[in-house]
């Protein structure tokens, strides 16, 4: 071999092939790795722990995240107070006008306070998050994760909501119960209230989740959610107690799941006449949980099969 040949060999070190097989592939692999580690960061510790512990850890993480924002906590607290104050002023003005019988001020205040608390537990961003995951394609990773996406969101959100209710909700409740000398029902009623509240949370969450899944066929998730929110506002009694509704509308509400999320549990707490048959309420709630579970499974199946058809 002579020097020219050597020179040639030296120059061929910089070939396109090298870019193709080395740097390009390397970059590509790096990108994928990055996507996966980013995802893992969002689910810290979870994969190392047992399945049962997993959801608990998840709740703790979301809880902890929230504490970072002290000003938000303060503002939210004041905001929630204002909300209750506005409601109470309205009820005061209405009762002063004297058009309403058989409902007293204390009941109205209790209703407003409990409704605010329930509302705090119901907050959910699941529809948007699902929409985001579909849009970015991250949903593909969810398919291969060893956790259920549904419960992952559920417990994450619950952790966040519990934080709000524990830190501000109970404080607000305690103060308003002392301030307006509201009565607390017996432990039995409280227990039934809590059970029916849990059902209610699961019902609303399932609705949100099912709606979130619809994003698979739609471009944008926010609008389906807006519709669901509007229906909830109208038919759940979270804003105005259903006893102010005309009778026909109130019976219509009984056929929808929404009133079983807010109005019925609060009615149990208040010991209303219609809530004396609490067994019936719990049964209907259970019925809705099952119906929504089946609906959500069906949608999920459709998505899975259409993903398989499209090949991702």
């Amino acid at each position, binding site marked *: 071999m002579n020097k020219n040949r*050597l020179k040639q060999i*030296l120059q061929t*070190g*910089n070939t396109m092939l090298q*870019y*193709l097989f*080395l*740097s390009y592939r390397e970059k590509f692999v790096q*990108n994928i790795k990055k996507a996966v580690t980013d995802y893992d960061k969002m689910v810290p510790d979870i994969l190392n722990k047992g399945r049962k512990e997993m959801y608990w850890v998840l709740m703790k993480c979301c809880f902890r995240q929230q*504490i970072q924002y002290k000003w938000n906590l303060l503002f939210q607290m004041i905001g929630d107070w204002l909300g209750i104050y506005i409601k109470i002023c309205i009820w005061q003005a209405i009762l002063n006008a004297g058009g309403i019988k058989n409902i007293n001020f204390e009941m109205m205040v209790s209703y407003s306070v409990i409704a605010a608390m329930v509302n705090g537990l119901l907050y959910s961003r699941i529809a948007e998050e699902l929409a985001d995951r579909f849009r970015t394609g991250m949903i593909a990773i969810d398919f291969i994760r060893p956790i259920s996406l549904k419960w992952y969101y559920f417990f994450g959100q619950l952790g966040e909501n519990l934080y709000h209710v524990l830190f501000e909700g109970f404080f607000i409740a305690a103060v308003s119960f002392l301030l307006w000398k509201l009565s607390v029902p017996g432990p039995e009623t409280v227990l039934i209230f809590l059970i029916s509240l849990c059902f209610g949370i699961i019902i609303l969450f399932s609705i949100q989740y099912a709606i979130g899944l619809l994003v698979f066929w739609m471009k944008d998730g926010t609008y389906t959610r807006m519709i669901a929110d509007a229906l909830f506002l109208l038919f759940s009694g979270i804003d105005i107690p259903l006893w102010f509704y005309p009778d026909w509308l109130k019976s219509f509400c009984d056929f929808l799941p929404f009133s079983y999320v807010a109005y019925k549990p609060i009615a149990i707490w208040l010991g209303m006449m219609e809530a004396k048959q609490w067994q019936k309420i719990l049964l209907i709630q259970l019925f809705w949980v099952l119906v929504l579970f089946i609906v959500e499974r069906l949608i999920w199946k459709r998505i899975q099969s259409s993903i398989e058809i499209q090949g991702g």
Partner: protein
Amino acid sequence: MSYITVDHVTREFKSFKRPKGLKNALTTLLKRNYEVKKAVDDLSFTVDKGELVGYIGPNGAGKSTTIKMLTGIITPTCGTIKTGGIIPWENRKENARHIGVVFGQRSQLNWDLPMEDTFELYRRMYRTEEIKFRKNTEMFTELLEMQPFLNKPVRQLSLGQKMRAELAIALLHDPEILYLDEPTIGLDVVVKDKIRKFVRELNREKKTTVILTTHDMADIEEICDRIIMIDHGTLMLDQSVALFKSQGADQYYAEVSFRYCKEPLFLDGVELIKELPFCHTYRINHRLVSVNVLLSRISELFEVTDITIKKPEIDEIVRKIYTSQPGETSGQLLYTK
């Protein structure tokens, strides 16, 4: 006369320290700890008109911060910058008229509009003259081969098409300086190549000064004449690409494939770094071993089937400099195939 002057520039950032653990998190409800970090620390350099500068450094070295200061997005904590006689953050709009910026990782295009409309909007925004505008659109459409997708909405374009479009709109108003922040990230080889050629061509035609940040050293090799490297916000190195590359020239690699071997090659300045059956890879120090000696030794010891000799690439030199920062321990050149 230098066109861009960066003179003893420092930029600090305040960041909130995240505590660990629930208890500590609770204490931050009462008190927050801030940390002052210097993203850029007493940095100075100058760039002449028409230069093609590669601005590199490891992640978090302060590259983007410098670009943001040069483009007038943020102001430095102290020090001065002049680009074409203008202090960018004081005359932001005036400065913006003379620069073109492409951020590889974020799009500036309107998602719903076809390119043509975006061109028109940019013409109005920069008040580009009709003739110049027409000439530039034609030229860029041709050079970047954009004709097939000019009237498709941006959301339907591929990443490579989008990046070419970004480049084109950043240049419609004939900026004197072009800032490219990781322009080839995530692109395939063909598009990368197209973009590199385009930037060089542009520089030749219009004498545009180009400042390019990237992690892909092939970008530097093919576009730039000069390299500026920073780390921890301070200047590490500022030299021509040719000089930079010659740094690694005292070593090269020889990969010897053979049918039979008497014994492994053993010489001063030669080191066996990879041993496979019927294939050895050696690192050779250029100063200690002449090529003649090397080749004759090899032919004595081996029955050679093939021999490949490879110089370290710019990538490796950079990797060596990056990794040898803390303690000079990991400054080993890695030979990868």
